[in-house]
């Protein structure tokens, strides 16, 4: 029971620890990397739910083999997910460069668009 559950808890841990970093962060670039940690929870969860103990990767040499393989669909999803993570990071970093130019700060305390 516990052994079957712990791997999923890893995904939860990545999600929460990344969010903790974002909540306490004083630097935008740090936040971007914490966001990458939060996102890694999705990779881990997806790959875990498609995993089959003792099975091999879903890549074949020829059509004849009937061996047990892990789910290829989740892997395809994770591939797309990884690309999305990189693009959002690129955009956020470009925003960070420019906001630093305007405000000379990357601290969320100083980066408040509007209040009230």
């Amino acid at each position, binding site marked *: 029971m516990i052994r079957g559950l712990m791997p999923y808890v890893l*995904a939860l841990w990545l*999600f929460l620890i990344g*969010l903790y970093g*974002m*909540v*306490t*962060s004083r630097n*935008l670039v740090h*936040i971007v990397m914490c*966001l990458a940690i*939060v*996102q890694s*929870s*999705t990779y881990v*969860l*997806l790959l*875990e*739910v*498609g995993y089959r103990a003792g099975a091999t990767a879903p890549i074949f040499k020829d059509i004849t083999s009937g061996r047990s393989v892990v*789910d290829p*669909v*989740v892997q395809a*999803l994770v591939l*797309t*997910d990884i690309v*999305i993570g990189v*693009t*959002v990071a690129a*955009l*956020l970093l470009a*925003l*960070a460069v*420019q*906001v630093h130019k*305007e*405000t000379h700060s990357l601290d*969320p*305390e100083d*980066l*408040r*668009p*509007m*209040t*009230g």
Partner: protein
Amino acid sequence: MNGALPALATFVPLGASVALGGLGRARRWFVDAVALAAAGATTVLTVALLVQTREHRIIHWFSGWKPHRGVALGVAFSADQLASGAALLVAALSLAAFVFSWRYLETGKNHFHVLMFLFEGGMIGFALSGDFFTLFVFFELMGVAAYALTGMNIGEAGPLEGAINFAIINSVGSFVLLLGIGLLYGRTGALNFAQVARALAKQPATDVVVVAMALVFVGLLVKAAVVPFHFWLADAHAVAPTPACVLFSGIMVMLGLYGVARVYWTVFRGVIGSAQHELGLVLIGAGVVSIVAGSVMCFVQRHLKRLLAFSTIAHGGIVLVGIGLMSHGGLAGSTLYVAGHGTVKASLFVLTGVLLHRFGSLDEGHLRGRGRGLWLTGALFALGGLALAGLPPFGTELGKGLIEEAGSDHAWMPWVFGFASVMTGAAVLRVAGRVFLGLGAAEPDRSERTGRSSPGAEERETTAAFDRTPAVLVVPAVMLLAGALAIGVWPQAAERAQVAAARFEDPKSYAASVLEGRDSLHDTETMAPSSSSVVYGVAAAGAAVALATVTLRRRRPGARMQASLRPALAPVTALRSLHTGHVGDYVMWLTIGLAAFGGLVIVAVH
């Protein structure tokens, strides 16, 4: 049956985006011509989609992977009346935004057009998607384009900061959505809505399904800016370029709510069973909180775009209440309300853009009396305010009336809706009175200032001549208001919306048409919007005018009056102080909302 229209409606704007991306050195008139042609073509395609889905759903299987013996491996787009309607609203508002930006934005390169088409295609794909992961991909596509658009005015800190908060919060939301999808896939092994529903029907409802539903909902509610996931919205909408705001407030936010309704009625309906009423109450509760918080925050703003942004949060709450009623009447009302509100709000943003174009400011106090000569803009602005307050026969009144009729068990409903209508309508009318008639005190208290929005701080989004307003800028506003009016006066609107909503809310028929290609029509009982709603609408509009008039008195309230008001205003001050602009706070509120919403959903279902 493999209709091409859903794929075309999504990939024509996306293709236009790629084409424009390769024409970096093209002349501006050429770029505009291509943009208007492509936006027009997309609108035509979505109209065709709306017409064709009258009789049956249109399913498109990508890569030709049709389901085999009821098992779907491929990715489907499924268009019904509501999905097509959402796509049409996206296309129409995009077209208006492109017409407006023709003379409005003159920023040399065509990056804006490229991103706007990506945004448009992303939203249409989101609306038509019948598959969880494709929903997520298009959620991200519209997100990435929107973040970049928000930060477009790089010369100032505000847009960059707003874009950062927007990108971070929406990204976290999308990961919550994806975690929910991961849990569902783990339980069912499927991603197609209909397939997931079938798989869930075969096994007893387990806890993981409820948790997955809560996560999927939260991810979508972040996009829908429902309180307490709403903080990013006001930051982003206040600083984004005006044509992008038209789409942000007009439809992007509402697509989050559409997504909630879509996945609930195609996937989770069968699992929830008799707990549907309780689950609906959770959604209604979230909607009411959004209505109250959004209305109050809207009224106290003096930055025009931020004011309109908060009003969007309040009106989104009304839509969510309609969805939470879990009936075809409520959903039909929400649908009409989205259309009515979207067109009205878009036209208000266009008119705000006209003011920014002319005066380089969006501060209510700074603009006081400067719009005196702009009688047409002023009249349209005031009309928009009245339409926002639900003045008959605008589409907003019709939608709200239907929701009230469907929720006639809830006696409080007209009052709460009325609160939103009066507060947001009065805020807009107050602005109209101050800007176009020069009413009100010369310079309100400094304490009412919104953050950094000092007068005249806005960067002009244009380099055109400022001494006159090109007619092209006002035309989209007129067209959009006319659209809002048309929805309200079209005699069949209420009935058609209810028939469409009833079919939307039929998971069995959905699954059969997606997986087996069998589509069945059945009759729906329809009702008329409550006759009292016309009275409510007129009353709300009148109250909005009255409230605006009171706030526009020349004399400020006396010291004693202010002292007696202070305790009553304490909650308002507290609410305002929560809007800190700090992204760490926003993430914290998101987690609070996730825990609370998740907990409530679990309690409701059990």
